[in-house]
C-alpha cells in the first residue's frame, strides 16, 4: 500500500502536516519545491494554504509547467482546500491573473463560506470511506459549485453543497483531514498511487 514516493508541494501552507500524516502511514513522503524533486515522485499532495500565493510561487519556481504535464500524464494528486482550488479547471472569485493547474472538471468558489468568523467544523458522511463520518474542518474554504461530466462528487454538506470530488487519479477536498488526525483520505490516496 505504501509503494512509491509521495511528494507534498512545499511552496506555502500546511505541508508539514501532510508530510506527518503520510509518514505516519509508512509512506516515503518528501517536500517538493523544485522541478527535479517533482520528477522523483509517484504521487503528489497539494496542501492547504493560500491559492493565490501557491499559484505565484509555482510560477516563480518554474513548477507550473512540469506540474501541468505530470497531471496530464496521470500523476495521482490529492489537494486539500487551496490544493482543491489548484486542481480545479475553473475558479470563481479568483484574482484576475490567477491560474490553476487544472485537471478536475469542476468549478470552485474561493472563500465560499465567508471570512474566518464563518469557518467551522462539522461531521461529514463520505460514502467512499469505510467507518464513521469524517470530522471535517473548513477554513475560509472553497466549495465545488459545478461538477463537470468527467468528475464525481464524493461528499456534500447537508445543504447539498459539494465539498469533495474525484476524477481518475485526482482527489480534492474543501476541508483539511491533515489537521484532525483523520487518515482515511491519505490511505485512499496511497492506494491510488500504488495502483497507478
Amino acid at each position, binding site marked *: 500500500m505504501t509503494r512509491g514516493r509521495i511528494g507534498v508541494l512545499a511552496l506555502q501552507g*500546511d505541508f508539514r502536516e501532510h508530510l506527518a500524516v503520510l509518514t505516519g502511514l509508512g509512506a516515503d513522503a518528501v517536500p517538493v519545491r523544485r522541478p527535479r524533486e517533482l520528477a522523483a515522485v509517484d504521487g503528489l499532495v497539494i496542501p492547504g*494554504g*493560500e491559492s493565490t500565493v501557491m499559484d505565484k*510561487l509555482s510560477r516563480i519556481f518554474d513548477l507550473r509547467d512540469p506540474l501541468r504535464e505530470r497531471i496530464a500524464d496521470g500523476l495521482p494528486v490529492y489537494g486539500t*482546500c487551496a490544493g482543491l482550488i489548484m486542481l480545479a479547471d475553473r475558479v470563481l472569485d479568483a484574482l484576475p491573473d490567477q491560474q490553476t493547474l487544472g485537471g478536475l472538471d469542476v468549478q470552485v468558489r474561493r472563500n465560499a463560506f*465567508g471570512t474566518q468568523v464563518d469557518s*467551522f467544523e462539522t461531521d461529514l458522511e463520505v460514502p467512499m470511506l469505510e467507518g464513521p463520518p469524517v470530522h471535517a474542518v473548513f*477554513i475560509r474554504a472553497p466549495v465545488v459549485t459545478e461538477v463537470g461530466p468527467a468528475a464525481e462528487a464524493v461528499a456534500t454538506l447537508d445543504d447539498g453543497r459539494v465539498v469533495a470530488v474525484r476524477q481518475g487519479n485526482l482527489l480534492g477536498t474543501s476541508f483539511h483531514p491533515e489537521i484532525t488526525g483523520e487518515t482515511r483520505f491519505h490511505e485512499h490516496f496511497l492506494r491510488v498511487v500504488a495502483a497507478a
Partner: protein
Amino acid sequence: MTDTLSPRTASDSTDAFGPGTGTGRVKRGLAEMLKGGVIMDVVDVEQAKIAEDNGAVAVMALERVPADIRAQGGVARMSDPDLIAAIIDAVSIPVMAKARIGHFVEAQVLQHLGVDYIDESEVLSPADYVNHIDKWGFTSPFVCGATNLGEALRRITEGAAMIRSKGEAGTGDVSEATKHIRTIKGEIAALKAKSPDELYVAAKELQAPYELVAEVARLGKLPVVLFTAGGVATPADAAMMMQLGADGVFVGSGIFKSGDPAARARAIVKATTAFDDPEAIADASRGLGEAMVGINVADVPAPHRLASRGW
C-alpha cells in the same frame, strides 16, 4: 494527554455565528494555512492590492505603519472601520487588524467587521496595563506578540491562536526579531530536555500553566503557529527568520517604506519559501532599490521601545 485547545468556546460572543464556528481548531487552523507566507502591513486599498498581487498570504490593515507611528508619536489606536472594511472588500486573502492590548471593545468591533485575525498589538498604545484581552470569548482568532516563551504561553492561555515574536516594529533593524525568536526557540529546546519532575518548577518560572508547559515539552514546539515580526526589511532578513525556525514572517514598514514596494514584496515572498537556498535568496535580493532607511534599535530610548509593551 492534556488538551489545551478549547477550554472555553465563543458561545458567549456578542456576535452570532453558525454552529461549529470559533473553535480552537478552526482558529489555530487558519494560522496553519498561513505558514511559509508573508503577512504585509498596508494602510490603504491600493497597498492592499499591491500586497495581494505580489504574493502576500494575508494583509494587516492599519492607518499608519509602525515606522510612522514611531515618528509621529501620540496614542495609536484601532484603525477607522471604513478603512478596514474597504480593505476587506478589496482583497481575497485574509485581512488582519490591530486592537490595543487589553482593549476588548476594539476587538469586538474588529470581529463585527469580519476581520480574519485580530492582532492584540504592542504597536498600538496599550489600553490596559494589567490585563490582556480574554480571547477565548471571541469567534475571531487572535495573534499576539511575545519576546519569550513565558509571554507566548500566557497569551496562549488567554486564547491566542497564533504567536508572533515581537522584534522592534518600525525600525528596519532585525536584531530584536532575531533575539526574540532565538529566545523562544531556545527556551522550548530547554523545556524539551527537562525530565517530567522538573516541569512543575519550569511552569512556575515561566509563569504559565503547568498543562501548557507540559504540552510544549512533549511537542517540542508551541501548540500554535509561531511567526516572526518586527524589523524584517530584506529577503535575507525573512530567510534568516525562517532558518531560525519561524513558521512565517510579518513585514510591517519594510515593504511600503522601501523604494519599490511591489518588487520588494515579491522578493521577500520568494526568499521566505526558498529560505534555505542562498542562490534563490541572492536572486531575490538583486536590484530591489532602496530598503527602508531604518533606525538602529540601540538608538531608540528604552521608553520608546514597543517590544516592552505587554508582559
